[in-house]
């Protein structure tokens, strides 16, 4: 009865006078958007009430949402009272600290802001206890509880570890004769050591592998554990079932060594079990059939050998067949020839594939019922192959129509279908048209859409009428987008990346795009976009649930550069500053000859628009062969993607360069011992490479223009640099790389010298340019102009190794007016590369083709990464 009365209140016709949300000031603004579903001045709708509760619950922040109503003078007074969930804010340990908080978090897999429901805590406690058991505390007991406070809840683990169990003995049983001394050292943990189950299991596996390596391919090692709680001691027993020592023998046709080795490995890795032995049969039969032995048969048996059990493979290859001739009969014109060629080994699978391809080609020409039979005699020798085609009638499309009860989206209506009147009828085209229609209607908010092709043929099957019948289902609009899992990140950061707006149709492609954009922020380690109520008709709310990544990242690295030799770097990044996806990163690199310090602040949204801006300050110091310099300054940079692979970068730089230890002062304008660059620069980058570290196809083009002026506080010069590289795969193992670089600069102003500042000049020579020379050796003082072109052939030698041959030419000129193609330097060389996790490690030897007096004939380079 009470329930009925309450329902009367819920569905009362009394208008809502006020809606109050019981939440903190900060949450009011955020949650109000959901509560505003309840309209003041109108009767309270049970459905809307329910929706409000569901929306608030979907944020993941509340364990209950209580809605109360009370009659007031003006109408119903509604109070919405969300009750916070116990969201994890910290982990604490009570009792002995066998695990620290960080380790505890890893063991329990508890995530920040995860609700601490009793079942979850029980599981977490069990995980901790199991972890302690794994360390030898076999009687460990762990109680986990949630202690609530203002900001969430702490997970408190009360640990009672119990005694540490130690190994009393660990003998081996069932060992084959003579193996005791080889196997006993592999036993772990040793008597007296703490018992750790994982170590004992790993030891058993090591024992098994050792037995396999000496021929006991069927070996199994099991572990028996007996715990004596009164002494806290564990008795271990490694029970070895070695089985007989095995070997493989081949009888009949001699097989290639590589195939035999492969078969032996297959059997050994498979524990010489029945399925592994059968797989070996099949592997050999497949290899023989690929050589034309159409009736090849391989069987196996087990024989007792003098010292070992022998698995004998009987290889009966049967006669080899070769293709004598290939004919295709009764085919309409335009059908391509089969891939099977005369004099090749006759392969049944190849013939079947050819027949399938012919059928596909015929279908593409409009022969919807085409069939192809392969006729070839049994046995071996040179055999003619006949493909007999039964094309049937060619069908043309008479009429195409789309029957849809809802208007087609603009994109779908504008797109011309593949199936068109007057063209050959192709089932595949119809399927593609159907898929295209389904995709565009799904994007227009019809997630359940079905498109049924209906094909009507005329009597002689020469004409087909194609009708695509659209069954749209209900149109779904986005009701609310609920954000869940945010702790430090502000809602605006997520909402500006979402391509899903409330009131718009629920589009699958936009949903995927939103997920991709959120992923590319790098702020979240988990992102899930789900429908809150998939059963709802008309309008559905989406829940975007995220799990935030740690704020601070740091890393270090060891590197190598020809000039610096070994260098060490460390970087530290603090992300998501102020919850707005801003970041501050610092980088430091030191070597015996140089150092670099860099700090960068990044703002992803400039003035409310998606426009990244970064501000960097740096200090760099380097000792080069012919001078040294210290440089420091600041850069403001912004970049914009004009197309998926085209980027425009604009920056403003202010930098001071102090050049010293100049070995040839006559080449360097005295005024440039210290120089200042102040001014804007711009770069356009087009990058279509498939892999920046190891490109095999695509190209990379960039053009830079830098301006500095005395009126902006720097020296006056204009400098441009263009570089381009293209990559093409000539063969499955061969890649051709081409590169060119052109640099030109000049100073201007009445009192300016002719030469660019030292550190801003162009240099050539070294491991990344004109490799016949050492670093900067082409013209040690550098110049205002540079030309370079190079080509390299890269040949893969396997998974890790490759080799290369290259030729390069270029030069550096004092002034732009000195630039000439008649004074180019030429070098050529060869090298090897090893693919490492750092990138390709490269060793090159290059020779000067037009050596000048007093120059070394050749140079070695060792570097990381390709020259271009």
């Amino acid at each position: 009865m009470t329930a009925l009365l309450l329902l009367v209140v819920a569905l009362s016709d009394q208008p809502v006078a006020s809606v109050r949300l019981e939440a903190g000031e900060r949450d009011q603004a955020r949650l109000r958007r959901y509560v505003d579903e309840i309209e003041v001045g109108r009767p309270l709708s049970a459905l809307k009430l329910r929706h409000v509760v569901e929306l608030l619950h979907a944020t993941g922040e509340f364990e209950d949402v209580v809605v109360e109503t009370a009659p007031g003078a003006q109408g119903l007074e509604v109070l919405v009272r969300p009750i916070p969930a116990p969201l994890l804010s910290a982990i604490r340990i009570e009792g002995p600290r066998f695990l620290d908080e960080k380790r505890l978090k890893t063991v329990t897999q508890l995530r920040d802001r995860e609700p601490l429901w009793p079942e979850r805590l029980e599981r977490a406690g069990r995980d901790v206890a199991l972890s302690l058991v794994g360390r030898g505390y076999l009687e460990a007991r762990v109680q986990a509880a949630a202690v609530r406070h203002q900001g969430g809840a702490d997970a408190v683990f009360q640990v009672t570890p119990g005694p540490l169990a130690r190994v009393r003995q660990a003998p081996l049983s069932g060992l084959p004769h003579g193996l005791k001394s080889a196997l006993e050292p592999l036993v772990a943990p040793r008597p007296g050591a703490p018992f750790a189950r994982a170590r004992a299991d790993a030891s058993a596996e090591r024992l098994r592998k050792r037995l396999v390596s000496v021929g006991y391919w069927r070996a199994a090692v099991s572990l028996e554990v007996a715990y004596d709680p009164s002494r806290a001691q564990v008795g271990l027993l490694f029970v070895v079932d070695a089985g007989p020592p095995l070997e493989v023998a081949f009888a009949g046709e001699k097989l290639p060594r590589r195939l035999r080795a492969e078969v032996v490995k297959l059997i050994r890795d498979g524990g010489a079990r029945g399925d592994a032995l059968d797989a070996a049969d099949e592997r050999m039969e497949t290899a023989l059939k690929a050589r034309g032995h159409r009736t090849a048969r391989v069987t196996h048996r087990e024989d007792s050998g003098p010292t070992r059990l022998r698995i004998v493979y009987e290889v009966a290859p049967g006669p080899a067949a070769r293709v004598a001739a290939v004919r295709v009969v009764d085919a309409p014109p335009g059908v391509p020839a089969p891939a099977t060629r005369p004099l090749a080994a006759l392969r049944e699978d190849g013939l079947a594939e050819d027949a399938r391809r012919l059928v596909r080609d015929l279908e593409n020409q409009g022969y919807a019922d085409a069939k192809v039979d392969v006729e070839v005699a049994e046995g071996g020798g040179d055999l003619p192959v006949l493909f007999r085609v039964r094309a049937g009638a060619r069908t043309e499309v008479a009429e195409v129509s789309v029957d849809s009860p809802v208007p087609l989206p603009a994109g779908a209506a504008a797109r011309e279908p593949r199936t068109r009147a007057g063209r050959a009828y192709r089932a595949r085209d119809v399927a593609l048209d159907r898929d295209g229609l389904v995709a565009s209607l799904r994007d227009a908010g019809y997630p359940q859409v079905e498109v049924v092709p209906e094909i009507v043929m005329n009597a002689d099957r020469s004409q087909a009428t194609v009708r695509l019948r659209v069954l749209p289902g209900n149109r779904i609009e986005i009701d609310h987008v609920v954000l869940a899992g945010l702790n430090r990140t502000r809602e605006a950061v997520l909402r500006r990346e979402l391509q899903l707006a409330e009131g718009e149709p629920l589009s699958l492609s936009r949903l995927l795009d939103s997920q991709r954009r959120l992923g590319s922020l790098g702020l979240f380690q988990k992102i899930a976009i789900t429908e809150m109520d998939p059963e709802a008709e008309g309008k559905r709310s989406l829940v975007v649930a995220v799990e935030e990544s740690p704020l601070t990242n740091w890393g270090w690295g060891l590197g190598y550069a020809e000039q610096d030799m070994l260098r060490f770097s460390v970087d530290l990044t603090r992300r998501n500053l102020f919850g707005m996806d801003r970041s501050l990163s610092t980088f430091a690199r030191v070597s015996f000859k140089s150092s670099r310090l860099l700090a960068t602040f990044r703002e992803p949204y400039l003035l409310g628009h998606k426009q990244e801006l970064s501000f960097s300050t740096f200090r760099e110091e380097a000792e080069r062969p012919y001078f040294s310099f210290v440089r420091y300054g600041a850069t403001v940079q912004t970049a914009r993607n004009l197309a998926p692979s085209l980027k425009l970068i604009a920056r403003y730089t202010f930098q001071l360069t102090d050049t010293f230890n100049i070995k040839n002062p006559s080449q360097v304008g005295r005024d440039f011992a210290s120089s200042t660059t102040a001014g804007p620069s711009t770069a356009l980058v087009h990058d279509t490479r498939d892999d920046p570290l190891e490109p095999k196809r695509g190209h990379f083009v960039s053009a830079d223009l830098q301006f500095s002026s005395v009126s902006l506080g720097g020296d006056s010069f204009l400098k441009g640099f263009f570089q381009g590289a293209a990559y093409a795969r000539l063969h499955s193992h061969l890649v051709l790389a081409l590169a060119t670089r052109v640099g030109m600069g000049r100073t201007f102003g009445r009192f300016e010298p002719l030469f660019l500042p030292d550190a801003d000049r162009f240099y050539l020579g070294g491991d990344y340019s004109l490799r016949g020379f050492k670093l900067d050796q082409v013209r040690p003082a550098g110049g205002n102009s540079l030309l370079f072109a190079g080509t390299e052939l890269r040949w893969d030698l396997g998974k890790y190794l490759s080799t290369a041959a290259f030729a390069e030419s270029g030069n550096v000129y004092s002034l732009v007016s000195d630039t000439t193609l008649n004074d180019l330097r030429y070098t050529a060389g060869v090298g090897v590369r090893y693919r490492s996790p750092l990138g390709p490690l490269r060793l090159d030897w290059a020779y000067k083709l037009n050596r000048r007096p007093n120059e070394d004939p050749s140079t070695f380079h060792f570097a990381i990464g390709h020259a271009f």
Partner: protein
Amino acid sequence: MPSSQPTRAEVARFRRPWPAPALLVLTLLAPPTSRAEVVERIVAVVDGRPVLLSEVRLLARVRGETEKAALSALIDERLMFREASRLSQAAVAQEEEARVLAALKDKLRAGLEEPEAELRRLVRRQLGIVKYIEFRFRPQVRVGDEAVRGEYESRYANAGGAPSLSAVAEEIRDALAERELNAKIEAWVKDLRSQAEIRENP
């Protein structure tokens, strides 16, 4: 120095009962007592999805059960329907839905006006479950002649004037089939519950 202890007269005045008219005036002048009623809340969460008080009340009314029993049934229905909705054979046609909805409205006509969308949702859920059960479990139910004979003998072993086996065989077969089907459904629900994360709010 005045004493902090109340005098005897003060104590007597304090203990004197308030006259009835004064009580009446106070009652009338007092602000109205809060008559706030809970109209919606989350009573349970099943695999992250909330079960609401209004849903429980609706089911309790439709089935004539207590709210506690209705909550348990609703959790089962949620779990079953989630499985059922993955199977296209369990999809509910609009005509079927409309027919059952009309029957349910007839049944509830004397009572309150629940929102139609809620009733429709309930009907769709229950129809989907029934169709799933018919598709998945009904074909597995087999009642052999031996089982029918055994049940006949246990029913009428000592009864005088028992009907012939052939007269009641179909009835017994149907009863046994229903029993077996129910056992399968119970096992299925038990399995679904064991795999689900269910939290009931106090």
